[in-house]
């Protein structure tokens, strides 16, 4: 069967989830697959992330559909009516073209039926296997039957067949018969043996007797072909390479022609080399003869179980997003990297995350290998990054921040210990804190006591004086050899392409770059080498969460643009909103349906008594026991019985309430009843946990159902209809690279865009750049964008114009644009602010006084136009961080180091012998740009580090600039007599005060427009419906600006797409007659959804922003603010219902 989707998203880590949510949010059907048995990727293992030191994944919850799905902690689960999630599933092949891809997926069986598994863990208890737990980074053992992550919802055990020893103990232990190894089906699994040697067949028949596989043979090649042609039932073919009447190759190809999925196992001697070719042609495996019974039988039996249990799923999709993430460098790949594997005190940064986690390995914690508390902990950066020997000529971009975060975590965790927090030390070459809030994060870490040492340690040995510790030697800043011992030594491991990257790249038909990550196109950071296939997150290079999400949005935008060509989003008719009858004036009539066939319910529950007691409850008009409510037949039976009763409230007692939300919508349609008046209550788990004798289970279940009834009796039956259409127009402020990119992206979705630029020309800062570090021509790209925007039927360009007025709220904004031809009123649903930044201008260090002092950008331009002649130069000096990362502008400008490296390479290309000196603090060539830095050093340019408290001094004499500074490598002062001095000018925000005030968005402490949340909502401003991107939001290079612009466009399209901007049913409201206006609720609202009205007499709730968290209702002393669906009265009666049986 082939299912049709708009998009296929491969990889369900944060980036994949984000892309899927983006697409689903604009009404597209998405298949989200992941090879592992859980969602969340690497993040399930990390409890806290920089720079906020918390998790915060729930900040994405507003992207899920509250009404048609369930909202949970996003590290636990994801539910969306437009997203089908397939776990343990890999992409096998991707055929077809953009708009009509055909994907084949293989879903690996877990051998545990999720509808029967109750998570009791008995299978794991009896499993004799011990393998390294992936979740706990190998620090703990797990069985073959195991729980992949502890926190998932739903959370079922799985059997890892590869490590299974086939003892079947889990099968026997499972109380609900959820484990299925397909014992019975073996008898109909016909194995055909095509081997001239009759002994093989005889052996196999003897060996596999216990399994009862029907074995047939020996047959010759011709009879195999005959049987295949007749369509005789053969489930597995064992084909020997010595087959003589027909060549094995012909047998194989013919069989596969007739049944492409026929598993064929080749047997033969190792010399039969053609077997390799046959494997390529589709044979499943090659087994050497003579067959080894002890190995072959378990192998074949497992193969059988895979074949009959794995599922092949074929889907059609218009676009594909690859979000395969990355994997952490494994230092055990090469023998004895820095004592890892030899000294137990040496761990990777991932292992440390697990050690300090509350779900970490049992009995470990932050201890030395000998069990004493770890009090001295050190991190070493760049393990497996920036290392040519390890084929990693790139920077992993995230490890510096991860180590700083881990040091923070450790210090907090040990703060209460005797002697205060543990000593934390970070050894590094550069500290790459290039993200906007990173520098201050580093400063805080320094201030809180973490030591930062510039040194690359080459060896770690056990401490001879203290065997539980490790000893390192390093040269300090003064060049003195230091010896120090640490209790734990953490390797800050770098990023690598994800495991299985080659297979995925082959299946998806995409190219990889020289480091094995996904290759992307210039100025199209989310586009892969294959049209219609996009790269999200860190699949195309290591990135932090914030940037991964930007890339996920950008990839989703690419996919959505493509989908839009084939099925324009604007023309799609939304699901007609079901109209439910108004039951406000009816007496409550509750119908209770209880699923009676859950394995435990059957045996442990007195269903007759339960029915009797439920019937006796006031308000209950009907009770029904339903067989297998989770099946569609069961569901139909519920609908039928409900129709008989004609209820206006429905309670369903079953399992897994979160899975029923879409079902309730169906039921709502069938009964013409609002699903808000229905509730699903988990009775299955209760019965399962209720002890072996079922003692107390009856009252537990009754009391739970009673609570649900009480909840519905108290529910507010007023219909919830608050739909408002969004204006299908976007306003983009700023006509630079980011603004143009965003405008085109939105306009391509069929929405009208007003692009407002203050200057007379479009193009912005990018027009000053001659070429990028990769050698691309930005001006050409921007000119192309300008041309496209000019010709786009949906874009109206207003140059020499300003937004003069902005009112309203998300979905319904009203702005006035002052143009040279007079004011233009614009009604729009969303706004994108791309108002840019400026190159810092400062007049010191001889700049603008001496002709030989210029900015890096000027140098680039003057090299390009020939006004700087390299032939006349004797030496060039460059000074980095000229005005960045100081007290005044405490952030890294990101682009300056790239520009310096670019200029060094250009100077050296023209005159390889020209001495070039770069004075720097940290070279921020993160990601693959590192490779250009390596190249620049290879050209012989000298990079000399200075510390901010001892910056280079300079003197101007005879048209030359003499720069003197301390060189930490030489350990003495150096003096450079330079003909030309280039200063790294930082990026400063443009003056945003006016635009910020008009649009009601906030600025950060540097004057950039502030993100709603740096990590999880990187392109949302602090005002709903207004998005920010490009330099207006912070320093970024061109690729990053483009990705942000596309991300902002994606968010804007999502908002414009809403034909009905409906708020959730669970929103807060204010009963004004009770409200004292004390304002406590405004302070506690985490979504800034509340404010005091301008007339100061009312608390107003923005029902689109309100996420129904209930903080306001909790803080309000007299229930003047209430949460619909959770009134105090209702909750109190639910508590009564709960306590009546038990207390």
């Amino acid at each position, binding site marked *: 069967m082939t299912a049709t989707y708009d998009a296929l998203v491969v990889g369900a880590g944060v980036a994949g989830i984000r892309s899927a949510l983006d697409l689903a949010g604009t009404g597209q059907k998405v298949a989200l697959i992941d090879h592992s048995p859980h969602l969340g990727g690497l993040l399930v293992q990390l409890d806290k992330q920089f720079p906020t030191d918390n998790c915060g994944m729930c900040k994405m919850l507003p992207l899920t559909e509250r009404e048609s799905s369930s909202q949970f902690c996003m590290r636990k689960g994801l539910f969306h009516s437009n997203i089908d999630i397939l776990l343990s599933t890999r992409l096998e092949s991707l055929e077809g073209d953009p708009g009509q891809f055909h994907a084949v997926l293989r879903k690996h069986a877990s051998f545990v039926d999720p509808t029967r598994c109750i998570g009791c863990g008995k299978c794991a208890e009896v499993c004799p296997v011990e393998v390294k737990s992936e979740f706990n980074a190998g620090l703990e053992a797990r069985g073959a039957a195991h729980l992949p992550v502890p926190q998932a919802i739903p959370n079922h055990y799985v059997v890892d067949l590869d490590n299974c020893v086939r003892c079947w103990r889990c099968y026997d232990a499972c109380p609900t018969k959820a484990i299925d190894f397909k014992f019975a089906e073996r008898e109909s699994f016909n194995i055909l043996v095509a081997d001239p040697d009759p002994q093989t067949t005889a052996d196999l028949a003897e060996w596999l007797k216990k399994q009862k596989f029907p074995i047939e043979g020996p047959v010759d090649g011709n009879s195999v072909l005959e049987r295949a042609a007749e369509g005789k039932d053969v489930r597995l073919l064992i084909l020997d390479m010595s087959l003589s009447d027909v060549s094995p190759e012909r047998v194989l190809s013919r069989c596969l022609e007739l049944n492409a999925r026929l598993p064929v196992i080749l047997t033969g001697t190792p010399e039969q080399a053609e077997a390799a070719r046959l494997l390529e042609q589709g044979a499943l495996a090659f087994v050497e003869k003579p067959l080894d019974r002890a190995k072959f039988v378990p192998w074949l039996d497992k193969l059988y179980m895979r074949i009959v249990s794995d599922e092949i799923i074929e889907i059609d999709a218009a676009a594909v997003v690859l979000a395969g993430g990355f994997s952490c460098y494994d230092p055990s790949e090469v023998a004895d990297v820095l004592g890892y594997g030899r000294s137990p005190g040496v761990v990777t940064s991932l292992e440390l995350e697990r050690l300090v986690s509350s779900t970490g390995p049992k009995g470990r914690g932050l201890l030395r290998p000998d069990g004493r508390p770890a009090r001295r902990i050190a991190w070493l950066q760049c393990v497996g990054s920036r290392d040519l020997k390890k084929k990693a000529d790139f920077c992993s971009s995230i490890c510096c921040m991860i180590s700083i975060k881990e040091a923070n975590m450790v210090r907090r965790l040990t703060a*209460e210990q005797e002697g205060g927090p543990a000593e934390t030390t970070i050894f590094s070459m550069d500290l790459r804190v290039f993200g906007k809030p990173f520098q201050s994060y580093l400063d805080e870490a320094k201030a809180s006591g973490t030591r930062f040492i510039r040194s690359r340690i080459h060896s770690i040995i056990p401490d001879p004086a203290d065997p539980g510790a490790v000893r390192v030697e390093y040269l300090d800043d003064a060049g003195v050899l230091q010896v120090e011992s640490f209790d734990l030594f953490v390797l800050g491991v770098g990023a690598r392409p994800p495991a299985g990257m080659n297979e995925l790249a082959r299946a998806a038909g995409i190219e990889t770059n020289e480091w094995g990550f996904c290759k992307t196109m210039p100025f199209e950071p989310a586009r892969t080498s294959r049209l219609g296939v996009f790269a999200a997150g860190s699949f195309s290079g290591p990135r932090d969460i914030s940037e991964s999400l930007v890339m996920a949005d950008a990839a989703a935008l690419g996919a959505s643009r493509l989908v839009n060509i084939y099925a324009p989003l604007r023309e799609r008719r939304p699901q007609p909103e079901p109209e439910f009858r108004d039951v406000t004036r009816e007496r409550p009539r509750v119908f209770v349906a209880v699923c009676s066939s859950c394995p435990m319910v059957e045996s442990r529950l007195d269903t007759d008594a339960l029915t009797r007691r439920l019937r006796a409850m*006031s308000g209950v008009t009907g009770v029904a026991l339903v067989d297998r409510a989770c099946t569609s037949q069961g569901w139909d039976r519920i609908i039928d019985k409900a129709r008989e009763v004609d209820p206006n409230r429905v309670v369903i007692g079953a399992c897994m309430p979160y899975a029923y939300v879409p079902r309730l919508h169906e039921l709502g349609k069938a009964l013409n009843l609002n699903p808000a008046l229905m509730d699903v209550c988990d009775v299955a788990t209760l019965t399962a946990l209720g002890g072996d004798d079922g003692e107390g289970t009856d009252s537990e279940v009754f009391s739970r159902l009673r609570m649900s009834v009480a909840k519905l*009796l108290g529910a507010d039956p007023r219909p919830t209809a608050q739909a408002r259409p969004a204006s299908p127009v976007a306003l983009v402020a700023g006509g630079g690279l980011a603004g143009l990119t965003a405008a085109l992206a939105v306009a391509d979705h069929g929405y009208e865009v007003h692009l407002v630029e203050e200057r007379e020309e479009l193009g912005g800062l990018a027009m000053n750049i001659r070429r990028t570090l990769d050698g691309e021509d930005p001006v050409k790209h921007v000119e192309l964008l300008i041309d496209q925007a000019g010709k786009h039927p949906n874009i109206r360009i207003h140059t020499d114009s300003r937004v003069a007025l902005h009112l309203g709220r998300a979905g319904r904004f009203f702005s006035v644009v002052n143009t040279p031809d007079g004011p233009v009123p614009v009604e729009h649903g969303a706004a994108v602010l791309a108002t840019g930044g400026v190159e810092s201008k400062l007049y010191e260090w001889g700049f603008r006084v001496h002709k030989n002092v210029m900015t890096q950008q000027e140098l680039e331009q003057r090299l390009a136009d020939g006004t700087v002649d390299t032939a006349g130069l004797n030496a060039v000096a460059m000074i980095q961080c000229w005005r960045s990362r100081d007290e005044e502008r405490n952030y890294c400008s990101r682009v300056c180091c790239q520009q310096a490296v670019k200029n060094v390479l250009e100077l050296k290309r023209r005159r390889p012998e020209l001495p070039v000196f770069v004075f720097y603090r940290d070279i921020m060539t993160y990601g693959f740009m590192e490779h250009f830095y390596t190249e620049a050093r290879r050209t012989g340019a000298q990079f000399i580090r200075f510390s901010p408290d001892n910056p280079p001094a300079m003197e101007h004499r005879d048209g030359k600039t003499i720069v003197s500074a301390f060189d930490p490598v030489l350990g003495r002062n150096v003096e450079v007599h330079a003909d030309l001095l280039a200063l790294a000018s930082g990026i400063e925000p443009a003056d945003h005060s006016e635009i910020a005030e008009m649009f009601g968005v906030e600025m950060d402490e540097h004057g950039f427009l502030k993100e709603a949340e740096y990590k999880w909502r990187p392109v949302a401003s602090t005002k709903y419906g207004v998005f920010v991107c490009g330099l207006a939001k912070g320093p970024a290079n061109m690729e990053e600006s483009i990705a942000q612009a596309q991300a902002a466009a994606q968010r804007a399209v999502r908002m414009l797409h809403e034909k009905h901007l409906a708020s959730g049913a669970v929103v807060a409201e204010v009963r004004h*007659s*009770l*409200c*004292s*206006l*004390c*304002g*406590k609720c405004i*302070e*506690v609202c985490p979504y800034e959804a509340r404010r005091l009205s301008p007339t100061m007499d009312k608390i107003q709730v923005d029902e689109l922003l309100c996420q129904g968290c209930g903080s306001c209702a909790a*803080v309000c*002393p*007299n*229930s*003047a603010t209430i949460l619909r669906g959770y*009134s*105090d*009265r209702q909750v*109190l*009666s639910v508590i*009564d219902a709960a306590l*009546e049986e038990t*207390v």
Partner: protein
Amino acid sequence: MATTSRIEVRQNGPLAAIREFLAKVLADEEIASVMAVSNVRGAMMPTVVTDPEKLSAVDPFAPAFHLNAARQVARLTRGEMEGHMAAVLRPCEIRAFTELVKLNQGSPHNIVLIGVDCYGAYASRDYHAMTRANGSKSPDERTLEFMGKAPSGGLEDPAATPPVAQACRVCEHPSPEGADIILGLFGADASKEMWAIAKTPTGEGLLNRLGLPDADSLEARDRAVEEMAARRLAALEIMNAQTAEKISTPEKMADYLADCVNCYNCRVACPVCYCKECVFVTDVFEHEPWQYQGWARKKGALRVPVDTMFYHLTRLAHSSTACVGCGQCSNACPNDIPVMEMFRLVGGRTQAAFGYEAGRDPDEPQPLSVFLEKELAEVTGGVD
């Protein structure tokens, strides 16, 4: 250093002197009205005075405290106002007003707080009994008599007939620290002089404009305040220990509250109970018949009205961090339940838990309006 002026008391006595002082205040160009307790038809009630003539009925030292005026002051300052109002208040009224300002119920901008050194007041019931028994005395005479007896501390002896209210006997804040101007009585010979002490720039501005003579040293007052506070803290400790014993278990607490008829007078009288309407009279507590039946079934006998303990616990939860200990709750109780004692004990402990003190500082945020990642480690176990 703040300005300290002397209010001379001539032969007409301290009340005349204070009326004269307030007349000067009212005459100030920035002051539009004076709020103070007056004798209105024989009862001592807060009044807003704009006519200097009417100041003759004002008596801020009267030993009657029928209501805590903080709620009235909040109402009068909420929103725009012409000119400033000078309000003469007891220390606990000022502290309650400070709490209300934090809750946006009143505004400190158009008001000059004149706090009186407070010897306390009789419980309303005792005061009324006294006036009835002693009808021949004029209100002024009663006040002067009180001012004569109070400084010795004798009226704080429970055996006195009558003593000042229990809340006043354990009040460790007799000096109105949050005021703009303090009307100083403590340590002064009220037949000769009182002091006006400016504590804020607003107060200083006004006091300077009044042109009063400078005062000498305030040492005597400081000593008197210290002495009083120590005495009352000791009494508070004893009272808290007794109350703690009386409400140490839910059972005992139910006994403590047994006479409560859910009239909610204590909540009406409470100056920091600021809700427009109490949640206990809203639909939240309109239970269903099946709930009553269920409770009755479980207990065998159900006391109605229900939710009595729930009500008091809720009020403790909502208001104990803002409790200033004025004692109006006990004053208002028709059945003599010692509500104040319970609030002083619980309020003292909840405020201590947050390092907070109600009414201490207008800039100190109320505990429940701030979120700290790590607090109350002894309750949460210090785990994140």
